[in-house]
């Protein structure tokens, strides 16, 4: 079965291998200067004692490669469509699986070997991309402290592997259910985008209870390190949380419309509001939770993938060929 899987997939394997090699060459070639620049910037600022003001004054890397790095967010979906969707569907629509299913191996073994190899190749490919991207983004994350932000977190470390395992499993299950390659590819893409969006927007912020920091209206405070800020605003004296909706502001977190009658027209509006009981707040996931979140999220997607693979097994062993 391994031989047949290899024989069938060697074109895709060559394609994936080629793309990975190209990406690796590009990122290594551009990443080495970025790392060098980062080291010289650090050395300079340490000598001059200006390291605190580095963010915003230094630009690392290049926009074009930075865009390519952001685009790797699509790698799991592409692998799911390229490797996962045709796995059952192609052989079903060409009825070639009747040949495979009347040889001396059971359908379960047929699926186990094929799915096993393809999931492994998908996971390894995603791990390679993720390792390159994590390394490439390292200096920039250190500079700007945003490794935990939603647009960075999704590209780095172990979650891309989880996404890929899920996307490939989704492709396999979709192919087993609809038995045609093109619809299976479509379902894989749509399903992947929907699940990723729902988890990222509505589930991920609640993996662990967020921390809320309350501080004076006149003060300023930012969560330390690579924290993920979920919300910021003002707490009214009654306890209501107010967040900015438009730009008509008195201060970064204070809208002009919230200013009470008594404080209007005063020169020191914020001091007046502070005395009246207004406070600022920041709700965030601390940067120290980066790895717990990586593991929770990756584990969640791997569990989804396991369920989808179970569906594929149930479908091929129960349905007629």
């Amino acid at each position: 079965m391994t031989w047949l899987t290899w024989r069938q997939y060697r074109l895709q394997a060559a394609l994936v291998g080629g793309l990975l090699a190209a990406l690796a060459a590009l990122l290594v070639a551009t990443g080495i200067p970025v790392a060098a620049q980062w080291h010289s910037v650090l050395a300079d600022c340490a000598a001059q004692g200006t390291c605190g003001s580095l963010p915003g004054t230094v630009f690392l890397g290049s926009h074009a490669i930075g865009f390519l790095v952001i685009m790797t967010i699509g790698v799991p979906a592409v692998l799911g469509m390229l490797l996962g969707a045709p796995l059952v569907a192609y052989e079903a629509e060409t009825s070639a699986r009747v040949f495979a299913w009347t040889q001396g191996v059971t359908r379960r073994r047929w699926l186990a070997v094929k799915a096993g190899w393809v999931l492994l190749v998908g996971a390894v490919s995603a791990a390679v991309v993720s390792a390159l991207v994590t390394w490439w983004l390292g200096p920039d994350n250190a500079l700007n402290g945003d490794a935990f932000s939603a647009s960075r977190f999704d590209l780095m470390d172990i979650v891309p592997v989880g996404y890929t395992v899920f996307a490939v499993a989704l492709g396999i299950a979709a192919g087993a259910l609809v038995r045609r390659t093109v619809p299976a590819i479509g379902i894989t893409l749509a399903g992947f985008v929907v699940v990723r969006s729902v988890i990222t927007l509505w589930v991920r912020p609640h993996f662990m209870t967020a921390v809320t920091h309350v501080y004076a209206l006149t003060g300023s405070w930012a969560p330390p390190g690579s924290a993920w800020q979920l919300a910021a605003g003002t707490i009214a004296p009654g306890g209501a949380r107010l967040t900015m909706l438009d730009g008509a502001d008195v201060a970064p977190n204070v809208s002009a419309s919230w200013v009470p009658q008594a404080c209007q027209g005063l020169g020191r509006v914020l001091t007046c509001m502070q005395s009246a009981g207004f406070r600022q707040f920041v709700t965030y996931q601390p940067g120290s939770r980066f790895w717990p979140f990586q593991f929770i999220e990756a584990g969640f997607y791997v569990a989804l993938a396991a369920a989808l693979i179970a569906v594929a097994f149930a479908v091929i062993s129960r349905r007629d060929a």
Partner: protein
Amino acid sequence: MNGPDGSGRPEPRLTAVPRENAPGEPAGAGTPGPPGPGTGTPSAGGREHRAIETTRLTKRYGRSAALSDCSISVPRGRICGLVGPNGAGKSTLLRLLTGLARPTGGSALVLGGAPRQDPAFLADIGYLAQDVPLYRRLSAEDHILAGARLNKRWDGASARTRLRELGVPLDRAVGTLSGGQRAQVGLSLALAKRPRLLLLDEPVAALDPLARRHFLSTTTAAMAEAEGGLTIVLSSHQIADLERVCDHLILLAKSQLQLCGDIDDLLADHLVLVGPRKDPAAVERTHTVVHATHTPRQSTLVIKRGSPLIDPAYQSEDISLEELVLAYMGAAAPAAYSRLSTVGEEQ
């Protein structure tokens, strides 16, 4: 409607195959495998010498039945023809026997056990579907190599030799081969498994007359080589072909079994009556009339042989296989076919 299942059969025709093996393990070469534990259902009635035995086997798709209540029995070591009009359920029956499809009712015993997902069972079944399913982008050689890795018992060398002799390129993607060449690849792969039961679904439909003849001689040669360890079920519309190679017959029409039995027995059991046109009611009182066709002057009846015929107005003749098949198919055919004569030459 079942015919006799063939005890006391006469000698086979073209097949140089010793028929009756010892029950259980056939003496054929290259069949070292099962039945292992659980495969040979030990039960009464000499099940071991049946390659196929089904009981009220039924397959429904939604409300329509592709096969209903089909009870057949095929002894080991036979070449069995499977005939019937399009849509009669021939492919469904074969797919049920391979285990590719599951019955919605009844049961099947194939080589002593139910069709199942088990390497030992799968190794014993060779199957060639009507559309010759193969990996279109892979070559015949790739398939032979794949077969060697997917089967414990595999004779790739003979498949290569056969295809080379036929001039079928081994290194070209099978999707680029002609329909006939693909059918040859499919048959070679099915034979390379050295199966104990070979199920062929209209394998000759894509072949020219010469290739058809070669194909049939290949199957009979495989039978001879297997020395009784091989049973073949072959569906076809070419009754002349079946007559040449088969010694057993299954006839399906309208998703139901019409006939199943040893061909010589079936022929001996039926009779053609030709006589002046009149109501066949008198004959029907004493005999089962399978099919009656009438011209303005004469009536032709295909009947089951029974008590001696009383009416001397009828002339009785032996029946040919084609006449027998057409009579049963005609009896189940739509009205538009009802006036077609099924006996003798078409005028």
